[in-house]
């Protein structure tokens, strides 16, 4: 079974509102630039897996017209209705069959066209959840309240995540929010849905990402520094919030364990060099530390207090600024993967983590209350 690697990537800018670009133009420029960067012609692309959502685009069968824009004319193609990281997982397994040399992965999401509240409330079943007005922020707030209560985590610990990620975002030319914020400012910002404050909420983002995944020999023809996909674990747990313990995420634990088993990792904090997680909200990054096995349950705050996960720390997490700096629906998880690629290939420029980097973890999630999680292990 040949190794599978990322031979190239391209990311549009992430903006709060891309008003003078329509969906197909955003997709075309993002994919066309990738082909120019990698010197690969559209004729050489063997297969395409795209990721998008009808509800974000406001168009049913959203890939139908989008396919013309991503070069899928007369191609073997399929579409995943999850974050782009799930499309990379599916493409990874397709390539393991040995039937194709490469697969182009394209994820797009103009979240500003409809806004995340409707997208999230429409995920709620009409009988027990939708009438309550549950959506992204209020569902995260319910999880935060349970997490703080169970493990005695303080709102200040959570606020530190915002300070860390916004400082990283200031250095990252590829992200959207590029300004720092102080701990006091975060703690003073008003509650949107207690205990989540205004500055602890991810921005609305429009953007697209394209990745060229390939078998080892094709990848080496395209680049001399492919980033290997060593393992992918993913999992979905229970739907209704009242049917599960919100202070941790069983599906995140199982996804991480599955990925570590494939790669032979025992202690992720020691055997990984860096992680990019889809933290969504401040507290969720701490909860993800615990459920990705970086530390014990309830001890996530210590990793932020002692600076382990800082930019210069022993185990940097979200040196890109994470989703607190850019959060395009259906794209944010794949963006974490290419942020890992930038770091591993030492092409992150001003934002480059200095320590040795051989193996990184990228995390994506889908659904409310971290119901579904996906962990990708990358190495150089």
């Amino acid at each position, binding site marked *: 079974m040949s190794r599978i690697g990322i031979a190239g990537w391209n990311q549009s800018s992430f903006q709060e509102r891309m008003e003078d670009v329509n969906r197909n133009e955003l997709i075309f420029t993002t994919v066309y630039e990738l082909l120019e960067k990698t010197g690969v012609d559209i004729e050489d692309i063997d297969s395409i897996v795209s990721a998008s959502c*009808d509800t974000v685009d406001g168009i049913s069968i959203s890939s139908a017209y989008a*396919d013309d824009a991503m070069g899928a004319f*007369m191609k073997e193609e*399929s579409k995943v*209705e999850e974050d782009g990281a799930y499309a990379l997982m599916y493409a990874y397994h397709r390539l393991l069959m040995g039937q194709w040399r490469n697969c182009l992965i394209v994820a797009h999401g103009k979240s500003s066209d409809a806004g995340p509240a409707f*997208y999230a409330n429409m995920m709620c079943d009409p*009988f027990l959840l939708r009438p309550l007005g549950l959506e992204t922020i209020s569902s995260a707030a319910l999880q935060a309240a349970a997490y703080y209560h169970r493990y005695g985590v303080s709102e200040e610990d959570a606020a530190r995540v915002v300070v860390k990620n916004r400082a990283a975002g200031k250095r990252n030319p590829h992200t959207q929010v590029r300004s720092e914020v102080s701990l006091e400012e975060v703690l003073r910002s008003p509650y949107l849905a207690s205990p989540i404050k205004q500055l602890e909420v991810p921005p609305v983002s429009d953007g697209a990402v394209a990745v060229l995944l390939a078998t080892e020999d094709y990848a080496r023809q395209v680049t001399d520094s492919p980033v290997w996909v060593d393992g992918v674990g993913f999992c979905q747990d229970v739907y209704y919030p009242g049917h599960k313990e919100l202070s941790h995420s069983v599906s995140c634990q*199982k996804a991480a364990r599955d990925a570590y088993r494939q790669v032979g990792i025992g202690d992720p904090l020691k055997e990984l060099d860096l992680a990019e997680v889809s933290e969504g909200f401040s507290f969720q990054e701490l909860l993800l530390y615990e459920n990705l096995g970086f530390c014990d349950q309830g001890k996530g705050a210590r990793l932020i207090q002692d600076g382990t996960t800082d930019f210069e720390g022993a185990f940097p997490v979200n040196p890109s600024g994470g989703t607190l700096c850019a959060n395009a629906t259906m794209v944010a998880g794949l963006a974490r993967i290419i942020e890992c690629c930038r770091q591993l290939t030492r092409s992150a420029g001003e934002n480059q983590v200095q320590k040795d980097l051989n193996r990184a973890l990228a995390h994506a999630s889908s*659904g*409310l209350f971290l119901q579904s999680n996906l962990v990708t292990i990358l190495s150089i």
Partner: protein
Amino acid sequence: MARKVAVVGIGMTENKSHWDMSIPALYRMGASRALEDSGLNVDDLDAVVFGHSPEYFEGINHPEKWCGEAVGAYNKPLFRIHTGGSVGASAAIGAYYMVASGKYDVVLAISGNKLNETSSAQIGLSTVYDPIMGRQFAAGAPSAVALQANRYYSTHGYSDEHGLMVAVKNRLNALNNPYAQLKLPGYTLEMARNTPMLCYPLRMADMCPTSDAVCCMIFAAEDRVESITDNPGWVLNAVSTNEGVDYVDRDWGKPIGLRLAADKAYERAGIKDPRQELDVVEVYDAFSAQELIWYEGLKLCDWGEGGSLMESGATEMTGDIPVNPSGGVLSANSIGAAAMFRLAEAALQVMGKADQRQVEGARLSLGHGWGGAIQFHTLMLFSKDKP
């Protein structure tokens, strides 16, 4: 090289208005029937590929989140595929690829829709059009296919009579299929011809019903197959292509995307002459004229000979290449499950489990689904014998 994979269990719900079942409950029925058919239980499943077509058909975003546990995916890997009308086949193809990759041994694919959750499926369908380029000017699915049918008929000198022949063949076949929705005993060309002309050249008889349904297929890796079943449906290979929508020089009567898929599938399966080697075919006949066009795309005959092939009777149950013994989409269309029904029916034929609609001695079969703006084509080839 890719691992060999077989279908080891199939679960279908009836195509009708399931007025007494919620969306998760209907999905659960499909999954539990497949588990029962294979003798497996939820703990045996390594992953689930969940198909569901447009969110706005039932007004539920990411329905795989609400319905995941109802298909046995509790704390298991699950991801959703969505390619419009072909989603049922794309989900099955996704499950096949996940097992063939070598990383998952038993994967359940499931797909469906409850089109009766809206007061009119057409409202949901109108959201298929780009809001700026077409939604206020919606062609409507039937009229888009009518443009395809008219182009095809006039280019090759056929008429809507040929479409009616398909409609009658499939409605009579459907009498042998307990899961079909339309049951029209004694259906004749006159009866079909007398139905109103809805979108020239397509009459009501040439069009499919709308129904609620879920279809489920369980795929297993070669070293697990013997322990699960003694008449598996071996997958030779599977292909899904996109032809494109608005591309330069498109001829709406000539499905080059389907021909691309067929060429790749036959080449990978070592099939030289599909007309002779295939024993039975299930195509996505949402509208009668399309079955004639798909004959040509699938190389059951040359370009322009679809109508003549129908006239020859070759595709009847008594012919040498029966098409749609199940009655096809013309007899049952839930959109989300319709394409997987085609693959499931093709698999049942080589598994010898097609009961009254069984084609005697079928060893090699093909299932086809289309979706989107008549642009996605999905194929899966099945064999009784291990490849």
